[in-house]
């Protein structure tokens, strides 16, 4: 087992572990803002997981999926923030 294979295996394991930890914060987060931040970080970790997974499976098609996930995560976070700001104005 060469160094790059070992590094890819360790990276997949550790990124999966951190996705689990972020999911814990998504479940216990006290307010809706904590959950939005956790969702943003989950999608960012999904990009890193896709990049490592493309090395592990020896295909390069997955990186396009990473671009789409980055776009959609930013749009979702901005939309959530916009509606949070409007909720405060109507109270």
């Amino acid at each position: 087992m060469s160094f790059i294979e070992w590094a890819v295996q360790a990276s997949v394991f550790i990124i999966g572990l951190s996705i689990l930890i972020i999911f814990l914060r998504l479940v216990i987060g006290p307010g809706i803002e904590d959950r939005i931040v956790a969702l943003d970080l989950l999608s960012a970790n999904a990009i890193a997981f896709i990049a490592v997974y493309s090395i592990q499976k020896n295909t390069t098609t997955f990186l396009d999926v990473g671009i789409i996930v980055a776009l959609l995560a930013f749009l979702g976070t901005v939309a959530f923030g916009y509606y949070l700001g409007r909720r405060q104005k109507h109270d």
Partner: protein
Amino acid sequence: MIEILSGIFLLLGTLFILLSAIGILKMPDLYTRMSATTKASTLGIGLVLIGTGIYWQDFGIASRAVAIIVFLFLTAPVAAHIIGRAAYFNKVPLCEKTKTDELGDRRDT
């Protein structure tokens, strides 16, 4: 040689991603959590994508990786600012150890 360099970049980025995950779990309030996730996770993903780009040694893959990195570096501060501003005006509580809260009680006016 290239593979060893790529593996080092991957492991370093993975370490920063793990640090940001620990930060979002252990930090005391929303604003410090957002600080941990925005900075550490952006750096970690950038390092992982650099490692991927130099592993394949292909111009198309490298340009895709650079595109994702530039997009993340542009959008992560904007998204964090929007969420933080909405949370601050929605009166999400600050940590007890906060030294300066410049608006304080005047944030409604």
